[in-house]
């Protein structure tokens, strides 16, 4: 069986650990260099999930916590594909999301922002990509909210996204932002990403073709995980 490693992660596209503009990172960022580790079986494998693990309603945040009606807010579809750096779809992979409600308040016992909890909105969802790597969620657009960093910082509207891929080396958590939001360029958490194109890649695009007329507006967000070599990782060739 071919066991090939993932392409090296390009750390110049990724936020560094120590980013003083995002203050919490200062005491939580390792100072020594990471040890570069060529992939072994421990990194090229990763957990496998199936349809028994989740329920069909889990990707519908408008309904998966509704108690006596729909949540308040702009109804949206978030959809796209999970691809690798070779542009191959990543099928059957678990995508999990979480977000604030339309007022910018999280359903979390540690969030005390003055915007109210929405009784009909939980704020999390999960789904598996299909055979083409495609996924979608239905939700309401999250609100911006203030946070303690500098005296007056506001997070742009965002949805947290967690993706697995096929190997533990592809594990990724990121945040999806929305096209046109002026808070994106103000946000220290976004702006610590050193590459402007990498920031652009986190901004979901308004997708009129995927809207549901008279119902929900749509944003497209493709997620790219590390690509994989097609050759053996052993130095000596055996087969292939």
């Amino acid at each position, binding site marked *: 069986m071919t066991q090939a490693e993932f392409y090296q992660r390009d750390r110049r596209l990724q936020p560094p650990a120590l980013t003083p503009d995002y203050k919490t990172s200062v005491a939580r960022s390792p100072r020594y260099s990471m040890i*570069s580790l060529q992939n072994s079986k421990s990194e090229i494998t990763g957990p496998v999930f199936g349809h028994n693990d989740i329920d069909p309603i889990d990707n519908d945040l408008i309904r998966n*916590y509704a108690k006596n009606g729909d949540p308040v807010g702009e109804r949206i579809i978030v959809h796209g594909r999970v691809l690798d750096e070779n542009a191959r779809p990543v099928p059957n992979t678990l995508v999990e999301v*979480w977000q604030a409600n339309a007022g910018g308040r999280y359903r979390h016992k*540690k969030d005390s922002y003055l915007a109210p909890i929405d009784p009909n909105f939980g704020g999390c969802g999960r789904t598996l990509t299909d055979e083409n790597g495609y996924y979608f969620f239905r939700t309401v657009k999250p609100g911006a909210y203030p946070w303690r960093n500098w005296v007056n910082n506001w997070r742009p509207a965002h949805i947290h996204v967690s993706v697995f891929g096929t190997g533990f080396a592809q594990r990724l958590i990121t945040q999806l932002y929305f096209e046109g939001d002026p808070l994106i360029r103000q946000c220290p958490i976004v702006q610590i990403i050193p590459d402007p194109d990498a920031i652009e890649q986190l901004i979901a695009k308004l997708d009129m073709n995927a809207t549901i007329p008279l119902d929900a507006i749509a944003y497209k967000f493709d997620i790219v995980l590390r690509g994989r070599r097609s050759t053996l990782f052993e130095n000596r060739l055996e087969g292939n």
Partner: protein
Amino acid sequence: MPQELNYLRETASQTAGPYVHIGLAPGAAGFDIYREELGWDIAGPNAGGQRIRVEGLVIDGMGSPVKDVLLEVWQANSEGNYAHPEGGGEVEEGFRGWGRVITDFETGEWGFDTVKPGPVMGRNGRMMAPHLNLWIVARGINIGLNTRMYFPDEEDANAKDPVINLVEWEKRRATLIARRDDRDGKPVYRFDIRLQGDDETVFFDI
């Protein structure tokens, strides 16, 4: 026309933030939404090998426990096989080898029950000592941190392990090895992860 490579580029990471529990452990955030949360049962009921517990803290640069961290573990079964098509062989029914754990909001302590993994074949035919692969995310961590936990009762295997031996500084190798504190006859491994300081844990760029 020059050759075009046409590779896509990996999506940038962003911090999991303080409310990671809503998405990945909603019960801890304070609400019940899913039929079953994922990652609480790592080994399943049928796994062979020794049942163990693993506990620890994640400690920041001030020496304080990080109380809003989420860890994921990925491990082989007692035969050294991962539950994956390329994992090396069969695993027991119900063995996933993957788990997810959060810290106590008051103390920062985390812990999980599993089985002790077996040695895993590494690169170029070199055996890797039994280990747990760990991935750590939290507010203030911009991209998930990867490390490994090795076992203190595997001294010979650890001494030959090709990954431990990649660490040039012998003193730093010790940060990858847990401490064993048995409790009620069950092995409990203590693995504190230090994000900074002289004894900063070794993190890997995998």
